[in-house]
């Protein structure tokens, strides 16, 4: 029997104290503590199916916890952003990054809640740091977290007692998606740079 890990501590808490423990775990995960939040949701689905947890309170407190955690990390980014704003205000790259996030940040916030989950905390910090409107952040965040909770609690409910088997695949698949996103962004930037650079004269020349 292995020693009690943080994951085991929260799993024991989930079956003993129920929804408040899920809310606390998701709040801490939203703050950036490295907890396997998706695994907790899969387990919660299985526990609801087994009758150990009640689904309405569980989903309500879980959603509340993760939104509070995300908002706190947004605020953290906002305070850090004040420093960055003073430091990099005259930088065009900084302003360009802020403008880009203001235009397309909603999609990034929504997708990182349930699909590209390893990027959720950096996106929260960037949203706060770039002064993305809090109420817009909250709207996209809530929509994404509802999708995340419904998806993984539902999956845990369907697979029941075999939630541990599926959690490994879910974690690996999420990592693969982040890799594809990084690769896609890199290729996009490379193509942009190539198309913007002035054409170089041919070394051979005409004739």
């Amino acid at each position, binding site marked *: 029997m292995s020693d009690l890990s943080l*994951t085991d501590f929260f799993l024991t808490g989930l079956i003993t104290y129920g929804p408040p423990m899920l809310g606390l775990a998701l709040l801490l995960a939203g703050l950036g503590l490295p907890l396997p939040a998706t695994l907790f949701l899969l387990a919660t689905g299985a526990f609801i199916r087994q009758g150990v947890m009640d689904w309405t309170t569980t989903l309500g407190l879980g959603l509340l916890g993760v939104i509070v955690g995300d908002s706190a990390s947004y605020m953290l980014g906002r305070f850090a952003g004040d420093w960055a704003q003073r430091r990099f205000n005259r930088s065009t790259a900084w302003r360009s990054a802020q403008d880009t996030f203001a235009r397309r940040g909603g999609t990034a916030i929504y997708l990182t809640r349930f699909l590209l989950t390893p990027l959720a905390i950096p996106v929260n910090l960037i949203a706060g740091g770039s002064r993305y409107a809090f109420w817009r952040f909250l709207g996209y965040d809530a929509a994404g977290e509802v999708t995340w909770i419904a998806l993984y609690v539902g999956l845990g409910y369907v697979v029941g007692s075999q939630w541990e088997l599926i959690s490994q695949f879910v974690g690996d698949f999420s*990592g693969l998606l982040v890799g594809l996103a990084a*690769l896609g962004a890199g290729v996009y930037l490379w193509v942009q740079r190539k198309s913007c650079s002035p054409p170089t004269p041919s070394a051979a020349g005409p004739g």
Partner: protein
Amino acid sequence: MTIGLIALGLILVGFFGVRAVVSFVRLQQTGLQSGVTDPEAIRGWMTIPYIATAYGVPEEYFFEHIGIPAEGNRDKSLGQLNREYAFGQPAAILNAVKEAIRKYQREQPPVTEAPP
């Protein structure tokens, strides 16, 4: 930065791609049976009341079989119980719980409906 992003993407795709395929193949081989109550699925983080609910075995049966009092031990995980009651014997409580489930399942075979 662009080259770094592409390199990072390739490393992540390679690493997690292989792991995802291996996990998926394992899932396919195992198959998903949502109602499985195999004692081998018992883990150290589980508590006696949870196992009692999940496996349909009365709580008192476990405490009697293991030989520890129910009072004050309901909220403790099997890992904690092992540390408190089975010094120097790794997985002693876990194995005792698995044995209790197997014994209960032998004593109480699944009830089949009688024909009308």
